[in-house]
């Protein structure tokens, strides 16, 4: 069939612009998809894999269908109808994604062990909500190529279209991460992608004097404006929500209930990343309290300098505790490294981080490993409390190479402690982590926290952890000459903890995480799946 095609000039330029704009919108939707689902399902590598796989499937289908459309109706209107459809479907995303995600997040999502369930649910939401608009976005490309190549060579048409779409996609990759999401939020970012498509479709239909579809596009734009103004409600409303923020790295919210304030990230419900109990420096026996055990192992004389590095500062719970419980006894300096600068900001507003800053806390916005690689400083105590996507330890902070960096930043007699959350014992993840630490430090100990599933891994720079010496120093805490509020309560709590300290002997030939091979997420997920299966 002979088709009219598009002559070089404004129409061709418009089609290439359309390709670039849709490429831009496609990446906005893809990148923002995980952010819209994060409050419900987290953003683990599995969620990302679901999004990418489902979107690739939609792309494949869209390209194929677009080719059929192009052969059947090789007209500019076809391209405009495709963009109009994808624009309308994109506009539905901010409404349907949180709604469907919330509906599919039953009460069981209060369990960390629902992570395997959340992975499947995120796949379902991606297939229902995000795949349809992407399908139509992909369908545009063959139509544009077909229209361009009728008056020009196929190679030129295909190359120009691909280049334009890819340039749009590059811009669509940077824009949401660096600018749009922090400035507008996820929902308005997606609405922007929808508005862009609808406005281009509207302009095209007006130019062709196709008033009915133009009216649909105009209505869509109007509806978007209304929805955009209303898109200021919390992404995930919850009792006691004090503040929520879409940071560059994650979805963070501060929740207050029963005289305690908690910092929660992503889909986290049961646990928290930072904790403040009104009227107390302790946290009811949570991990943070047990992190205070480390200086007893370091055994620094009273009044001597004590330099502490906290990798994974969050909102600053541990730093605040260190300045209260150790500040009066040592010349204390705490350096807190946090990759997400928004979390210390939340700490200043809700977790009294400024108190610690006034006492000397130095907050560094950096990745923990990058900080160690760049810093010449050495520390008496290094605390590692790092989780990405709630339960997963970032793999590059769990490898032999990382712990080697940690060891080189310890002073003589320095010690390191690492917080690990395990839902079920024995755990292959924990075995591998302990094996890795032992491989670097020569020996590893762990402390199972009483009444919790947290385990604190312990190691000393010289390979010898003086447990008996620490017991003796703990028994004398706080010194009679320096009263410390809640000091006795801390001692009682840590005495229970030190009873649980056990040296771990890794099995010969056990897994050691390296930068080349560290299946941290796979082992975490396997532990969680086994927890559900064993019931």
């Amino acid at each position: 069939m002979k088709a009219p095609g598009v002559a070089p000039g404004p129409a061709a330029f418009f089609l290439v612009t359309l390709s670039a704009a849709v490429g831009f919108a496609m990446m906005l939707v893809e990148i923002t998809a995980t952010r819209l689902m994060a409050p419900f399902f987290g953003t683990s590598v599995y969620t990302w894999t679901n999004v990418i796989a489902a979107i690739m499937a939609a792309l494949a289908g869209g390209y194929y269908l677009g080719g059929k459309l192009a052969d059947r109706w090789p007209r500019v209107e076809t391209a405009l109808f495709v963009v109009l459809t994808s624009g309308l479907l994109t506009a539905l995303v901010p409404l349907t994604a949180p709604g469907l995600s919330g509906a599919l997040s039953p009460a069981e999502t209060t369990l960390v062990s629902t992570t395997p369930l959340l992975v499947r649910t995120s796949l379902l939401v991606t297939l229902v909500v995000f795949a349809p608009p992407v399908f139509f976005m992909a369908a545009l490309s063959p139509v544009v190529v077909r229209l361009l190549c009728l008056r020009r060579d196929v190679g030129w048409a295909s190359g120009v279209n691909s280049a334009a779409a890819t340039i749009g996609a590059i811009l669509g990759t940077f824009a949401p991460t660096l600018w749009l999401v922090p400035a507008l939020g996820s929902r308005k970012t997606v609405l922007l992608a929808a508005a862009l498509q609808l406005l281009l479709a509207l302009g095209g239909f007006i130019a062709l004097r196709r008033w009915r579809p133009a009216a649909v596009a105009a209505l869509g734009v109007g509806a978007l404006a209304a929805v955009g103004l209303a898109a200021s409600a919390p992404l995930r409303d919850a009792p006691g929500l004090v503040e929520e923020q879409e940071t560059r790295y994650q979805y963070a919210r501060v929740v207050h209930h029963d005289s305690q304030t908690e910092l929660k990230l992503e889909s986290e419900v049961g646990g928290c990343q930072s904790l403040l109990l009104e009227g107390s420096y302790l946290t009811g026996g949570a991990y943070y309290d047990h992190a205070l055990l480390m200086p007893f192992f370091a055994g620094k004389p009273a009044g001597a300098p004590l330099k502490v590095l906290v990798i994974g500062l969050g909102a600053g719970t541990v730093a605040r505790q260190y300045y209260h419980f150790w500040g009066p006894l040592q010349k204390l300096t705490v350096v807190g490294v946090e990759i997400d600068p928004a979390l210390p900001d939340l700490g200043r507003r809700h977790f009294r981080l400024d108190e610690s800053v006034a006492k000397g806390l130095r907050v560094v916005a950096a990745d923990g490993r990058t900080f160690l690689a760049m810093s010449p400083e050495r520390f008496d105590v290094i605390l590692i409390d790092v989780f990405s996507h709630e339960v997963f330890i970032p793999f590059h902070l769990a490898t032999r190479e990382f712990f080697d960096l940690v060891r080189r930043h310890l002073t003589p007699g320095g010690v390191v402690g690492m917080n690990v959350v395990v839902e079920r014992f024995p755990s292959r993840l924990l075995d591998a982590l302990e094996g890795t630490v032992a491989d670097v430090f020569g020996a590893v100990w762990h402390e199972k926290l009483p009444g919790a599933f947290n385990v604190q891994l312990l190691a000393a720079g010289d390979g010898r952890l003086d447990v008996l010496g620490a017991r003796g120093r703990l028994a004398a805490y706080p010194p009679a000459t320096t009263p410390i509020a809640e000091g006795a309560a801390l001692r009682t709590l840590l005495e229970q903890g030190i009873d649980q300290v056990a040296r771990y002997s890794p099995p010969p030939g056990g897994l050691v995480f390296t930068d080349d091979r560290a299946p941290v997420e796979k082992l975490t997920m396997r532990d969680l799946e086994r927890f559900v299966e064993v019931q």
Partner: protein
Amino acid sequence: MTPRTRAALAAAGVVLGVLAASERVAAAHTTPAPDPRLDEARALAAAGEKDRAAALLSERLSAAPDDPAVLDLLGQVEIARLRPDRAAPMFQRLTELNPDVFATYARLGEAFILEGRLADAAATYRRLAARFPRNSQVASALAALEEDDARIGRLRRTYGRLGWAVGGVSLFWIAAFAFAVRRISSPPKPGA
């Protein structure tokens, strides 16, 4: 960790904490029969060398399989070694040898929770609640565990249903896609 499981574990921890304190007091006021090997195992455990303590106690247990003191200490050492799968049989045997010791049930329950066997932990706490009906901590730990166990059951069923839902939606899209392709591929009507 689930808030409920945390509550159960915390309740178990409180129970065990009270026990530990009372045992310290009891130890200070009683003079147990001297047992150098047990003392050595205790000293090793206190120094964090629980692997060596476990080896020593296992050796001792092979000579006297039903020694309550060894079973109890070895069970506690295995918990600290994060091997609740090895600790549970010790405490189970202890409940058979002496069914009236509160601490043994509490420790057995904790071992089951750490192993992820919530139903077994709930059964243990039920036995404990039956024997010590006035203990509110046991009752609250049991209630938390039973609720958690029920939640996990619902979770497993939802997990299965979600697999079917994902498959169903995928099939729907494939069918819609095939239908659309077929419609578009059909020859245009004359005059179109």
